[in-house]
């Protein structure tokens, strides 16, 4: 049968495999055809794995002998910051250009167990520091919907790989919007799960108190299915929360009430078409029987400032390990201290150097109280404020991004204007709550926009229900 990639989802593919309508090899070759045709331009993939045939054969035999799962034979891409044993994992950086993973990260382990076909590793902003994929050491990734525009970041590669039909689904990481922003820019669905729900074992740390792995796909159902596959406790990650401790408030979720943090949306720099699109999205929820309530969250607007204190501080500490000694690139020099300095100066990119130094400043004597401790306390207050909001509403919605996908170079000269693209997305990382970005239409130039749904801790189910109602 002819394979129509546009109209497939995980469930349908599974049925087709079981009916024998097409094989895993047939399906994967359709995706590989697209990659061959488009990847030279788009640069979504940094590497297509050379042993993909083994994965295909393994998946097919699971289907044939009845040991298959829902994800057997499903083509998935992973971000270049996830370890896959024996493969290069560079985190988009020159400093790890030659680094070969010594084990599988937790999420790759889950994909392999399920029999998924991992197509390859995808491009990203260097060490996930960026919102446009322009900081990758391996060239920029283009937005498959308009090659003159950025795909978003830092999971720009994963999102572009799905948007160009180079994989059905992708795994990305979200530290301060890095799944949801590129998903919105590429017209896709992206989930940042509750902090502690998906193991970070084998994921390259950017800011470990915010980093979280999550799924990216074309519809809510696929994203939900992939989330369920990776949403497991893992003893190897000390921040993975045991299932019995994931306390859910079951009173929340069936009141059909959605909160809109109206004051937060009235700031400067928010595109008019984005606001109009958001109002249309609100009407759509009303049509589905939801009650929309304006809520006041006066601390939410400080989230981005809090984030740009804590995140560089943690990054400066996490990236201290890239020193040219144990792995990665080394610049040979006479003295050890010069090895450190020259290696880091030469093989870390500009944005990474900037954030390490910013973090060093924030954590240095005299600045810790003024910046880090203050930001940490404010983080707790923001979290409390958002938790309290869920006493009255089941979910909170905002636009995903203040503006549609921008052109290359448009924001790269001013770091703060780049950081502002995550204005609405960062509060979920600060509050550790789950958040889903779903496509909400296109602007007058045909560029996609998204709406973000945030829910209480461990209540991804609420987001999926709202998302599916919105898709109707």
């Amino acid at each position: 049968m002819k394979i129509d990639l546009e109209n497939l989802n995980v469930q349908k593919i599974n049925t087709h495999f079981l009916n024998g309508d097409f094989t895993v090899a047939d399906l994967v070759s359709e995706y590989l055809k697209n990659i061959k045709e488009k990847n030279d331009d788009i640069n979504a993939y940094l590497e297509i794995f050379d042993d993909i045939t083994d994965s295909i054969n393994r998946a097919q035999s699971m289907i044939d002998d009845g040991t298959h799962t829902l994800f057997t034979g499903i083509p998935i891409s992973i971000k270049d910051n996830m370890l896959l044993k024996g493969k290069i994992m560079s985190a988009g950086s020159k400093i790890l250009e030659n680094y070969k993973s010594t084990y599988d990260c937790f999420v790759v382990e889950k994909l392999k167990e399920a029999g998924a076909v991992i197509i390859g590793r995808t491009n990203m902003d260097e060490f996930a520091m960026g919102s446009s994929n322009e900081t990758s050491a391996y060239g920029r990734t283009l937005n498959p919907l308009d090659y003159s525009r950025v795909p978003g970041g830092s999971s720009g590669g994963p999102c572009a790989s799905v948007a160009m039909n180079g994989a059905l689904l992708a795994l990305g990481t979200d530290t301060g919007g890095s799944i949801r922003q590129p998903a919105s820019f590429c017209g896709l669905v992206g989930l940042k799960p509750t902090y502690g729900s998906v193991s970070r074992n084998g994921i390259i740390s950017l800011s470990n108190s915010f980093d979280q792995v999550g799924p990216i796909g074309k519809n809510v159902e696929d994203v939900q299915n992939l989330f369920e596959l990776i949403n497991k406790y893992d003893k190897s990650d000390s921040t993975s929360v045991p299932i019995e401790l994931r306390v859910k408030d079951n009173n929340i979720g069936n009141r059909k009430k959605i909160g809109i943090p109206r004051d937060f949306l009235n700031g400067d720099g928010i595109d008019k078409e984005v606001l109009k699109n958001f109002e249309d999205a609100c009407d759509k929820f009303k049509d589905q029987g939801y009650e929309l309530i304006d809520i006041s969250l006066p601390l939410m607007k400080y989230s981005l400032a809090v984030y740009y204190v804590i995140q560089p501080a943690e990054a400066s500490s996490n990236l201290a390990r890239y020193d040219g000694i144990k792995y990665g690139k080394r610049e040979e020099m006479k003295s050890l201290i010069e090895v450190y300095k020259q290696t880091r100066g030469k093989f870390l990119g500009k944005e990474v150097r900037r954030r390490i130094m910013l973090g060093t400043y924030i954590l240095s004597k005299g600045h810790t109280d003024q910046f880090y401790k203050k930001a940490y306390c404010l983080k707790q207050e923001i979290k409390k404020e958002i938790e309290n909001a869920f006493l009255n509403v089941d979910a909170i919605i905002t636009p995903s991004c203040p503006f549609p996908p921008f052109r290359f170079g448009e924001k790269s000269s001013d770091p703060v204007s780049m950081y502002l693209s995550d204005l609405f997305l960062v509060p979920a990382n600060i509050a550790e709550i789950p958040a889903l970005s779903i496509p909400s239409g296109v602007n007058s130039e045909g560029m996609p926009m998204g709406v973000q749904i945030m829910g209480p801790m461990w209540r991804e189910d609420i987001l999926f229900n709202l998302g599916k109602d919105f898709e109707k």
Partner: protein
Amino acid sequence: MVFCYNKKMQLDEVKVLAEKANISIEEKELQSLTSDFDKILTYVSHINDAGISELNNSDFVIKNVYRDDVVSNKNSEFSKDILDNMPDTQDGFLKVNKIL
């Protein structure tokens, strides 16, 4: 006390930061970093406008989670892969410059 970031970052301070972070950076980039830091620190100083009360050490609720201290891998199970990733080795050891 409300702290407000209103001082200008000095080039010399940025040089010290580069030293502390062990990153060699060219003079020209140090200059652009100086103005970048001003912009970013001015932005993040908004955290002082939130009116959050003075710091309280009990607000730091971080706790450690430990695993059992047992060997979970076979002897030398990962040694070759780890050694292969090292920039320089000798007789199964990591080789670095003389320190003394």
